[in-house]
């Protein structure tokens, strides 16, 4: 099986306004947000809508991906397409929202890729199979990993409610 392909390459400071424009924020349910992913990047949005982007495909970006607004739609819209985001760094709230909803983020400082490249994403490094370059992965802090391991924040909180002894 081949490694997942890079379907979109973006620069630094990609804000949640680009990922999920504010004018679609009246749409809130995670089941309804995927249609507006990267709505202002018309061509890519149309590829998503046409089902031309397989689950597990990779978006590569620079520093501070997901900066700006706390809107959770920016995460649920990407999660709906099962995209994986590999970036040099992420905005804080976006990162936390992704952990909470189970969107896979990979922080790989210095990562370089072009559209169409294949990326093998491991726990400690990202290998650009096409270019042969390797990039170290910065692991998530353990506190966040616990939420991922629980299957997201809803399941994590539900467990706290049902078994309060697991809490503080």
């Amino acid at each position: 099986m081949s490694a997942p392909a890079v379907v979109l390459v973006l620069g630094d400071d990609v804000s949640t306004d680009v990922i999920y424009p504010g004018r679609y924020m009246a749409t809130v349910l995670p089941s309804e947000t995927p249609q507006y992913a990267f709505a202002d990047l018309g061509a890519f949005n149309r590829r998503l809508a046409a089902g031309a982007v397989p689950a597990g495909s990779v978006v590569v970006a620079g520093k501070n991906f997901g900066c700006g607004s706390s809107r959770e739609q920016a995460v649920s819209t990407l999660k709906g397409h099962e995209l994986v985001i590999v970036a040099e760094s992420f905005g804080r709230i976006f990162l936390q929202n992704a952990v909470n909803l189970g969107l896979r983020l990979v922080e790989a400082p210095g990562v370089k890729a072009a559209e169409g490249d294949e990326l093998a994403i491991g726990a400690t490094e990202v290998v650009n199979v096409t270019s042969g370059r390797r990039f170290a992965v910065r692991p998530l802090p353990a506190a966040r990993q616990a939420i991922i391991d629980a299957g997201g924040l809803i399941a994590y909180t539900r467990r706290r409610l049902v078994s309060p002894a697991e809490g503080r």
Partner: protein
Amino acid sequence: MGMTVVQRILARASGRSEVAVGDVVEPAVDLAMSHENAALVINQFREIYRDTGIEPRPWDPSRIAIVFDHRVPAESPKTATNQKRVREFVAAQGITRFHDIRGDRGGICHQILPENGYVRPGAVVVGTDSHTTSHGALGAFAFGIGATEMASVWALGYAVNVEVPATIRVNVSGAMPPMVGPKDLILHLVGVLGAAGATFRVLEFHGDAIRAMPTSGRLTLCNMAVEAGATSGIVPADAETLRYLKEEAGVLEAVHPVDADPDAAYERTVDVDVTALAPQIACPHTVDNVHPVGDVAGRHVDQIVIGSCTNGRLDDLAVAAGILRGRTVSPSTRMLVFPASGRIYQQALAAGYVADLVKAGAVVMNAGCGPCLGVHEGALGDGEVALSTTNRNFKGRMGNPASEVYLCSPAVAAASAVTGVITDPRGEGGR
């Protein structure tokens, strides 16, 4: 080891004698704020309880605040239906800190919370809005979270897995020159730090320029701390905070300021002297693309916006009215004004500011988030340029990816309204 203000707040809220940077804590939440996105919070909240046999009830409805501001009055049936669902939830759960679409007690959440005395020094405040950082102006630790995290707070009463952030100390000295204010200071700082320069960090503000700044200006400052990536901004509470709470927010009971320990450890210190600071402009399409106004003076603007949670307070409107009184908005541009709350709107009416602005040709709208995030009113045409006192200029922010947004202070915005081009408010421009 001494603690920063935020460390002291997190230690208290987590029931610990001290916390160190990087510790994972679960602080009790004093105030949990949402706006229209409470519709999503409610959905996620119910999801948490699914199949548990436990009735979904928030841990403490008196600590929840819900403020409609993003789309007021509703711009679509979809928003109106979301707002209706939130109203039903508010009534069923007995949430009293609810601010509906009203001319008296409605407005933007980041003004409604302070002016009603909901935010106290030393409190832990979370909000489903990135500009929740604003409330650090009152000496609280306030940060933005997503809707699912808010649902978790509603269920548990505390925030799970919060890492104690490192703090950058910002010392601000000197007296602000005429026509230069808190907005210019924070734009300058975001430019210096960069859009991600303070990510996972707190900006703690000190210095004589901060001590001399009224709470309204501190709200502007902390509001935009997030534009440098910061988890929060915070001004340790002082005599001005106590004055604001008593005189403007009607808080009569004792409040307890929290300050940093003298030997608190900071990741680094940034010193700013405002004595010679020029009016600042953030150019498209990032907030850290900051230049002195002179670099872009003369550039045509199609729409000027004054208002928002950043600069829609009474002193902001006073500056704008002072510049526009007896003058006219250039026919080559258009001007929209959004006060931050109904209370401020009324104060601006009483002071004559609204009349000054309307007579000059500005359109004064109801309090709300308005065009700031492109969801409601004030859309830009293809190729148009906006000059705005709001807090973000990302591509597409005001609703049209083919437009450009410049960010500035109320003084720059008002002076530019007269000319129709970006104008330095010092000297002739501001009269």
